[in-house]
């Protein structure tokens, strides 16, 4: 399965860009992810669309770790 993940940043002192990427592992709450130069912690994961072929479409909310 390939996970196409939409990452949106919630919180932080400034506005961070969101992110999108394909990955082999399903994102898990508590894991860290790097978007550009910034590191984030995943706080929520939910399905965005039903799976199609070998793809699952997810939305993850993240919070900044380095400020």
């Amino acid at each position, binding site marked *: 399965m390939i996970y196409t993940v939409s990452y*949106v940043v919630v919180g932080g002192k400034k506005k961070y860009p*969101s992110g*999108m*990427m*394909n990955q082999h592992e399903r994102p898990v709450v508590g894991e860290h992810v790097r978007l*550009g130069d910034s590191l984030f912690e995943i706080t929520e994961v939910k399905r965005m669309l039903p799976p199609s*072929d070998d793809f699952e*479409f997810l939305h993850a909310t993240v919070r900044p770790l380095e400020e």
Partner: protein
Amino acid sequence: MSELTQLLKRVSLFRGLSQAQLEQVAALTHMEHYHPREIIINQNTPGDKMYLIGSGQVEVVIQDQRGQAQVALILGEGQVFGEMALLDQGERSATVRATHENTLLYTIQEPSFTALCKDDTTLGYMMMRNLALDLSFKIRHQNFDY
């Protein structure tokens, strides 16, 4: 199976394509390398090709009407950008620049992509469906970001 067709199998834009069709698409691609901060495409310039991220990340920068530029989105491996040029041949809607050392991109030119879709209408149907789904995913993502 080549490394490139392995990558194409991991890209949702090419889901549902057979091995032979993936190899046809792979034959159209050209490889490009970029360094951090290097600009790949410029907003408001003509576009004639689509980009697929093989490795690294890129940032999508949008300049508003007052001239203020803002990084709106980070795209990573397996994501595509510039795909609207395959459909409407319009100007680029954003500037895109690399953020990682040795960002590896594969490009597909609009004329060769269109010719392939016309030659193999089954492939053409799936590609158009997948392009629509990809744009739908991006709109849904944007809705979450507001």
